[in-house]
């Protein structure tokens, strides 16, 4: 009789606890920042992204104390197998609910797949491939800051329209480089230009002399650098050595972050045309954020990757609080439902394919004489409005989008 009573009580308890779907797992929202902490992409993301996530959590909790939030981080070393291992461990054993940042497109595509399998959430800030909202789109992922299509249509088309109609590509030989080269080639050809050649360099590389020589002998007007981080800065430095710009060719930095310009110095980077979706000196709100960020990061100013982590985490927490649940699929759906509003990207929204929409800015790097202070690097050349900055949903082949 007693056993039966115990069994009944246990069964009742289990049945009642089944109703706790709409609660926060483990009573804490755990945010995992995964990126390259020490290698090629460590300055444009790295520890800065962790700090940006923490700032977002603090700012959220200043207004809304209903959630316990914890931030953890890990170094994926730009390797897809390491990233996958960390993602699985985080999701299965450590109770992480959302992974944010993830530069290096080969890693983010792998983590995207795992997140979808486990029903968690992924907010991509520094990862670039436009496939994330194309054939690899997922109901569990949001692609925030930028992507290869936006870069190609921002920088690429601006350069072709001003006369750069023959191109040679220097491409990092992995998912990101291929995607950026593909998207930019499409833009060049659509605008009447020609692609005279391409060369793929191992990722990462430190010596580009041989590849730059091939670019030089192709006599293309524009040498498109389909790489990022230390690869781009090394290529630009070495191009200066080989007299490429003096010889009449120009370099197109297809993905350049403000941290790269800092590393190059204005005398080497001046005149570079680039597209970003955030700049610390755009308005008072971005300046205020930059001041707080640089105080915590020993003077480093935020890149668009850092800004995307901050804004993405803020919006994520709003959705979790509104839903009172951290179930990945449901939270991402809520993020698409709620309009976004943050001090860094302004008002915007997230589309059905997971693409966050905001304006894209075309900047030109100032000459050393034009710069009035450290980190005063850019002049604004053009603004592409949000509706035109990113690939139209119908063209993406995303299975989530009803045709």
């Amino acid at each position, binding site marked *: 009789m007693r056993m039966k009573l115990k069994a009944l009580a246990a069964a009742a308890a289990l049945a009642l606890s089944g109703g706790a779907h709409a609660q926060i797992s483990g009573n804490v929202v755990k945010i995992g920042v995964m990126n390259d902490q*020490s*290698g*090629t992409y*460590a*300055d444009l993301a*790295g520890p800065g992204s962790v700090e940006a996530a923490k700032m977002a959590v603090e700012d959220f909790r200043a207004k809304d104390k209903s959630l316990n939030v914890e931030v953890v981080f890990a170094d994926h070393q730009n390797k897809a197998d390491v990233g996958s291992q960390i993602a699985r461990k985080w999701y299965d054993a450590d109770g992480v609910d959302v992974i944010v940042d993830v530069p290096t497109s080969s890693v983010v595509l792998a983590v995207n797949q795992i997140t979808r399998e486990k029903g968690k959430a992924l907010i991509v800030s520094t990862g670039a491939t436009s496939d994330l909202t194309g054939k690899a789109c997922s109901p569990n992922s949001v692609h925030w800051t930028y992507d290869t299509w936006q870069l190609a249509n921002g920088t690429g088309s601006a350069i072709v329209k001003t006369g750069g109609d023959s191109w040679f590509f220097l491409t990092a*030989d992995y998912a990101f480089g291929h995607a950026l080269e593909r998207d930019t080639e499409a833009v060049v050809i659509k605008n009447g230009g020609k692609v005279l050649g391409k*060369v*793929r*360099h*191992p990722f990462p590389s*430190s*010596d580009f*002399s*041989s*590849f730059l*020589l*091939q670019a*030089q*002998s192709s006599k293309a007007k524009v040498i498109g650098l389909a790489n990022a*981080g*230390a690869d781009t*800065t*090394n290529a630009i*430095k*070495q191009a200066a*050595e*080989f*007299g490429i710009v003096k*010889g009449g060719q120009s370099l197109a930095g297809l993905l350049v972050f403000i*941290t*790269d310009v*800092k*590393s*190059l*110095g204005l005398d080497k980077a001046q005149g570079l045309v680039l597209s970003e979706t955030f700049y610390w000196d755009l308005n008072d709100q971005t300046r205020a954020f930059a001041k707080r960020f640089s105080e915590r990061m020993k003077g480093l100013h935020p890149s668009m990757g850092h800004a995307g982590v901050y804004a993405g985490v803020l919006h994520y927490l709003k959705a979790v609080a509104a839903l009172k649940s951290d179930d990945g699929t449901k939270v991402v759906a809520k993020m698409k439902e709620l309009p976004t509003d943050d001090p860094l990207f302004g008002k915007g929204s997230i589309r059905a394919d997971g693409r966050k929409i905001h304006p894209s800015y075309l900047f030109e790097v100032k000459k050393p004489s034009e710069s009035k202070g450290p980190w005063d690097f850019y002049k604004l050349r053009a603004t592409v409005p949000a509706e035109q900055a990113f690939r139209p949903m119908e063209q993406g082949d995303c299975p989530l989008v009803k045709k």
Partner: protein
Amino acid sequence: MSEIFGVPTQALFGQLLIGLINGSFYALLSLGLAVIFGLLNIINFTHGAQYMMGAFAAYFLAQKLGLGYWWSLILVPLIVGASGIVIERLMISRLYKLDHLYGLLLTFGIALIIQGAFRHQFGSSGLPYAIPKELEGGQNLGFMFLPNYRAWVIVASLAVCIGTWFVIERTKLGAYLRAATENPTLVQAFGVNVPRMITLTYGFGVALAALAGVMAAPIYQVNPLMGADLIIVVFAVVVIGGMGSILGSVLTGFALGVVEGLTKVFFPEASNTVIFVIMAIVLMIRPQGLFGQR
């Protein structure tokens, strides 16, 4: 314009020249490794970290003391060489009687510590170091534009390599060194201070690595990872050339630089791995290396 395998001849000559430039770095670094291994039987894994320290020392001399490139060429090898001597006296000298492997493990561990410390302090984006004014600009050779600085790298490393080879193979001091490695007890019995010679030789090998670091600073960015990327390739070079042979490692360094350069033209994606493929083949056919005797 004639073509070889679909590549214009002029472009090919340009790539060969670039290959020679990279080969100079390989040669300089593998010279240091070969000297240390050939004469001291230590597999010095710290070599890459010492190369990196050389580049950083040049950067700091410029930033903090305002001393330019030419000063660094002389001072940095002395400074980093001295640090090498400290490591040798305190740690490596205790392992001479043991198997090679212990020296390898120790130097590998030291390399990881040094690299980790630098990475923690300086991040990874790299610090800028300017090409010295006297070597700026370049020559238009017709088939390519050769930067003056890169031409200087070839000339300087050739000079250092030939000089070192000459000292070791053709002078009395070199003869003592070679004798001391074959039979230290006997040489000590003749009154030669063998432990001091060994220490100074290690210091010299480290100084060579630091010199390569200073020469690399204006071309590659000064960053904590620069040694790690290079050291593995340099070990492959030393293995192919023959672990004990100084001439072998220098010649192989230049030759493999050229091979890598050609691979970058015909099959660029494989340029990182071609040296290891060659190493595997050489180890299968002639395990002592192309010029090795052991």
